[in-house]
């Protein structure tokens, strides 16, 4: 039996914020629970029945008391809601500059792909003090990427990219779990997250690779799968040019406007985006079933790589265009990807 730990490690900027909120909640609820318990015990002893026929004085209610214990809890609850929602909302959007890593969940393993082509299974190496964004997809059932030390959790759905981000603050080895029941070996779909000093991470990254970066793999696929025949860089082919596309708004023939993010590009490849781009005809063959999720990831990486430099890491997951990242507190401004002012908490 190992040492008895009653608290999880706190190893990300978000984890520190959440701890504070959590312990305030524990304190408030602890006081309320103790108060109710003491009151009931007091009544039980003080007003113990003295004779079997005892008839206590009757009281039927008190409107002031009712109003008090309706309104006061409501106010406290709204406060809790507000704090919980703010914590969540602030942490929802990653800063503009993130290290982007791909995660593929499948029964029963995690496959991680770093942009330089390094692959790992059931481990995730990341640098500390760097916002890391994971773009995740499942090849079969619903999984869930859960790192308790970072207090992050996100369902990983089939046929849909989900993203999650964190900023690790303490080097160490932390549990990675699948938190959504996914079949026979669900409890074996586990791994480790290694949070490393950025220099160590670069050294580690240098040892992997071999097959070339994801974008390079994607470029080969782009040429070999016939994409390049229509999607010519000049824009004079039967399909729109994909250069400088990533992260920009695209108007579809239906009039809908989408941001060309990972999800959008994936839907284009699989013929699921809902009609052609405005000014083009729907002649593109459907690659659904012909490309693996891994190949699609490579293609998306390639198209990202030929996108506009400035929007290279435009984060978005759902095509929602109304995000404003700059005004959110607690999130690093563009360019300041390193220390965001949070000191690792000691516990």
């Amino acid at each position, binding site marked *: 039996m190992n040492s008895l730990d009653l608290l999880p490690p706190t190893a990300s900027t978000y984890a520190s914020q959440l701890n504070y909120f959590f312990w305030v909640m524990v304190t408030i609820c602890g006081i309320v629970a103790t108060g109710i318990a003491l009151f009931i015990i007091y009544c039980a002893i003080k007003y113990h029945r003295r004779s079997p026929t005892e008839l206590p004085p009757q009281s039927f209610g008190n409107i002031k008391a009712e109003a008090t214990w309706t309104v006061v*809890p409501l106010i406290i609850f709204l406060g809790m809601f507000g704090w919980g929602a703010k914590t969540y909302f602030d942490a929802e959007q990653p800063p503009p500059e993130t290290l982007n890593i791909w995660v593929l969940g499948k029964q029963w393993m995690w496959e991680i792909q770093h942009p330089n082509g390094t692959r790992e299974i059931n481990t995730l190496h990341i640098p500390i003090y760097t916002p890391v964004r994971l773009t995740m997809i499942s090849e079969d059932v619903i999984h869930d990427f859960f790192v308790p030390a970072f207090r992050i959790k996100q369902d990983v*759905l089939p046929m849909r990219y989900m993203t999650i981000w964190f900023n690790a603050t303490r080097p160490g080895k932390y549990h990675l779990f699948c938190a959504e*029941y996914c079949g026979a070996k669900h409890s074996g779909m586990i791994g480790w997250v290694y949070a490393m000093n950025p220099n160590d991470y670069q050294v580690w990254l240098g040892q992997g690779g071999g097959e070339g970066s994801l974008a390079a793999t994607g470029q080969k696929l782009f040429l070999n799968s016939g994409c390049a025949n229509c999607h010519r860089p000049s824009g004079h082919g039967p399909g729109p040019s994909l250069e400088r596309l990533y992260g920009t708004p695209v108007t579809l023939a239906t009039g809908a406007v989408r941001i060309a993010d990972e999800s959008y590009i994936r839907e284009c490849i699989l013929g699921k985006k809902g009609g052609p781009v405005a000014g083009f005809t729907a002649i593109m063959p459907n690659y659904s079933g012909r490309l693996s999720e891994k190949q699609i990831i490579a293609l998306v990486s390639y198209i990202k790589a030929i996108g506009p430099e400035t929007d290279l890491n435009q984060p978005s997951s759902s095509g929602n265009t109304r995000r404003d990242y700059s005004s959110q507190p607690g999130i690093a401004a563009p360019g300041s990807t390193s220390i965001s002012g949070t000191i690792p908490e000691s516990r």
Partner: protein
Amino acid sequence: MIATAKIEAVEAPNYLTEKHGIKSWLLTIDHKRIALLYIFGITGFFVIGGVAALLMRLELLTPATDLVDPETYNKLFTAHGIVMVFFFLVPSIPTTLGNFLIPLMIGAKDLALPKLNLASWYVYMAGGAITLYAIASGGVDTGWTFYTPFSTVYSTTHVAAAAIGIFLVGFSSIMTGLNFIVTIHQLRAPGMTWFRMPLFLWSHYATSVVMILGTPVLAVTLLMVLVERVFGVGIFSPELGGDPVLFQHMFWFYSHPAVYIMILPSMGVVSELIAAFSRKAVFGYVFVAFSSIAIAVLGFLVWGHHMFVAGESVYSAMAFSILSYTVGVPSAIKVFNWSATLYKGSIAWETPLIYAIGFIGLFTIGGLTGLFVAALGIDVHVTDTYFVIAHFHYIMVGGAVMGYLGGLHYWWPKISGRMYPEALAKAAALIVFLGFNLTFFPQFVLGWLGMPRRYAAYPPEWQFLNIISTAGATILGVGYALPLVYLTWSWKYGPRAGANPWRATGLEWQVPSPPPTHNFEVTPIVTHKAYDYAGMKEQLGLG
């Protein structure tokens, strides 16, 4: 009870003695006998679900999978969840105590639709038989939540049979709810106005509304699971063009209100127990009554809080979070009013009160931890961990089962005509309370540490807390087994109970124990409010 011998001498036939033979039970349309049929049914399922839980806890004694393999473990927690939720908790109080007491409490001879009542038991048993077949013939490994596309495409176990069983049992729920609503509207005795009704009836009315509005959605959802699984029609599986999250919306649209189906009747029981054993009217009757209705209504608006990590947009997550907090308000109102009822009461520490106080304690902890999981930021960390397991067991087991056992002891003299052994029953109640907390409190810590639910194996550093939890479960098992033994014993050998052993108000205490088949010889005329101890003091021999 001094007059026991005399009572025996002039004993008229009651609902138990009027007719004999197996046929008189299987074809009965007496609500009291049907309640007993249901008690047999749900007790059987409780034992099955309990054994599955005990095996799970034994497996979790050690971090590795050694007692059972992971596949078996998955089937165990699925069996535990399905059996306990659909075949024990949802029907528990309404079909037993509700069935037995609603006509008695409103001064009626039976429920409005006695044949429908019997039919509901047969549908329940048929659904149960099919589900048991699914479990016994190899099991189901989807969890009681049947998440897609695992349940519709990937699982190779008996999903279809289990879904059919649950689909069926849902109809027994609908029949019961419908019957209660009609009965409470139509069969109240003269003078039994809505605001003279015992709070048990208000909570059952609220429960019935949730049953008839929510259960059809579950039926439709399971039907769609079947259609996709058996015929390959794409609804939920993205490979077939469906949406797996759609399933979660539909499933929780029923399954969150289902929690209120489990807890509201228990709250009704607790109101009765607190009133009887402090010999006072429930403080703030109207507020307690309407808080039941509020819980039933708001309960339908919070399902999305099960899906904060399932790709819900930030704004809908916020809406579901704030709505979840609003459900906390009527729950808090109840707890405060029960506590206020005890103040300056005449408090008798009988077994049912111990269960009622236990209910308040466990429900309060369950409710307060509900505030944690309703908070968006915290929920992301604790959802799908043991924190959530502990939270909902405090509500559904700590709450609903404490209420059920408390009610069963309180009305046992009425049901059986016999008293249970008080000292043993008190000991059992304390064992249940202790065992429950020992089982589930460590799970809050495990959940905050990050232990995911539905794990057959876990990291070794969490073994100590798991050992405590398993030890607690063993104690809890003993606590649950004791009433099974001594209540069975008392059925035959317990001392005779008079009509009103607790000197309680309520029409059910004005008829003999056990009541005659048609409950009331003459339709009673109600002139008192519920819990009018002062007004009925001569009648009750008080003061």
